[in-house]
């Protein structure tokens, strides 16, 4: 557990970077500090491992003031990842990862074999071990940075905008990987970003800071979207927060309607016989959707011919009826050529259809019940 108790940080020149911060990060939780540039996120993070010291107040880890004791020892137990990874250019990937175990007094052989394990854990090929950081892509460097921070198995991981310098596609992969790692490793993670989407995707708890180093709200992402504490938070989480809030409401509450389906390989005539309001979903032998058949395209075709794939409309996105959320249901409905969102089960087989109006009705009910702020 990490506790900020009335922590204020003033820099020389009198500017207040963090203003009377009170906040508790629970053990094993993923906490994100988010806010506009200059709001004191990095400063707050760096006070945890004593890269900076508070001007007032104190920070406790497991009830113990970080200020008591040796900073270098404290840091051996706290992993740290920064933007551009901060890798040592003069050490191979393997030796970069082995750094903290070596500092903690492990033998070279033991530290290297541990580094090899971590390389695999973060999804890098063993052939990367002997390379230097300059020989890796930005995304690979970031993975090495995470591996290096995890090498001595510290209970706490601090990450300062670790993914902001990589391109969006790679970033998404790294985020998913981090969530997977966290589900396996159960670290206490404090993650800094200025990207609210990243914060909401990753955080179990999100702390929104405003300029001047004031904590505006500290809550779970769903709560943040549903009930922003003030206009600043509402503005920061964005105008589309109602839409985003859908991501936290289960799709299981939606009525799943009938949907005409036809198995691939059927004839034009068989297909036209099952159409419902002019549409049917073509599925494979496992019930997985392939595309949509529409009356206007089948009209005039040879009834005895097999329905060919180039007569189909490409399908939209799908959503899981159980386990999915309203956001993916709405996406499914809006992206479907027939206006019916395709619901699937856990195996991806079609179970029925949902209409955008039904999703919006569910949203309206959630608003009435106070689950989402209007």
């Amino acid at each position, binding site marked *: 557990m990490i506790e900020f108790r009335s922590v204020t940080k003033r820099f020389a020149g009198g500017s207040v970077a963090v203003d009377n911060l009170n906040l508790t990060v629970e053990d094993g939780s993923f906490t994100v500090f988010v806010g506009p540039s200059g709001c004191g996120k990095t400063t707050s993070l760096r006070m945890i*491992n004593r890269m900076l010291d508070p001007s007032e107040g104190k920070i406790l880890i497991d009830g113990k003031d970080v200020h008591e004791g040796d900073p270098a020892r404290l*840091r051996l137990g706290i992993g740290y990842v*920064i933007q551009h990874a901060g*890798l040592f250019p003069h050490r191979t990937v393997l030796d970069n990862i082995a*750094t903290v175990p070596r500092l903690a007094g492990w033998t070279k052989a033991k530290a290297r074999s541990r580094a090899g394990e971590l390389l695999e854990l973060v999804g890098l090929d063993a052939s990367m071990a002997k390379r230097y950081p*300059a*020989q890796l*892509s930005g995304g690979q460097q970031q993975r090495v940075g995470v591996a*290096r921070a995890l090498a001595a198995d510290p209970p706490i991981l601090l990450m300062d905008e670790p993914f902001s310098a990589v391109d969006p596609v790679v970033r998404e992969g790294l985020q998913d990987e981090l969530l997977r790692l966290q589900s396996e490793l159960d670290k206490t993670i404090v993650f800094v970003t200025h990207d609210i989407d990243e914060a909401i995707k990753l955080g179990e708890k999100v702390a929104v800071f405003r300029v001047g180093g004031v904590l505006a709200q500290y809550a779970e992402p769903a709560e943040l979207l549903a009930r922003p504490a003030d206009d600043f938070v509402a503005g920061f989480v964005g105008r589309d927060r109602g839409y985003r809030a859908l991501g936290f409401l289960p799709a299981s509450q939606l009525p799943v309607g009938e949907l005409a389906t036809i198995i691939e390989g059927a004839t034009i005539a068989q297909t036209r016989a099952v159409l419902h309001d002019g549409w049917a979903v073509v599925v494979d032998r496992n019930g997985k959707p392939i595309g949509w058949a529409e009356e206007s395209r089948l009209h005039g075709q040879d009834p005895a011919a097999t329905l060919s794939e180039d007569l189909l409309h490409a399908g939209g996105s799908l959503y899981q009826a159980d386990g999915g959320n309203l956001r993916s249901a709405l996406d499914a409905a809006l992206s479907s050529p027939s206006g019916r969102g395709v619901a699937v089960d856990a195996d991806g087989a079609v179970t029925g259809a949902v209409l955008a109006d039904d999703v919006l009705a569910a949203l309206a009910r959630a608003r009435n019940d106070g689950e989402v702020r209007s």
Partner: protein
Amino acid sequence: MNWFLNHIDLIVEKTGQHLVISLLPVLFGLIISLPLGWLAGRNPIARAVLIPVSALLYTIPSLAMFVFLPLILGTQIIDPVNVIVALTIYTVSLLVRAIADALSVVDASILAAATAMGYRPARRFLAVELPLAVPVLISNLRVATVSNISLATVGSVIGIEGLGKLFSEGFQRQNLDEIVTGVVLVVVLALIIDLVLQLVGRAITPWTRTAVKS
């Protein structure tokens, strides 16, 4: 050429002496400059004192240095220690600034990452800052070494042994072969040592020659 072949023993002896009086100062100078350069690199007050003072030392003429050092050190005037101390001073004056500059170009975020991982300052200096400063350090070390090999010849004027002796004695004896041998050997020695340093520098900095990306 005949003179050369007839005096191989003498030449080997003088070359050995020359190497001692010119290279030992490089070693001593490096050992002294590292902490001074480090201090100058991280403390502005130390920098404001050390950099101008070390630059000033380099402007003292070598002959004056060789003559005055015995007065300060209490040594005999022809003691090679005088030359070694003098050349060490020149090396320090060249390297303090170079080391301060070499350390200051090391990326601050890499140093912050090292500190955050649990490096204490001294170990961080040896394990991270110094290796990253090696490319700049080596090129300055090459300048200091070549400069020492050449300056060490001046010692022969006051009777210090070394390759300089070949041309001061050759001059007295009006022996052109001896003078030429001395001059050529000094140049060749400087070139060889410079090449060795360059190769050593390459060997200990493999990361500087990695192709970018795969």
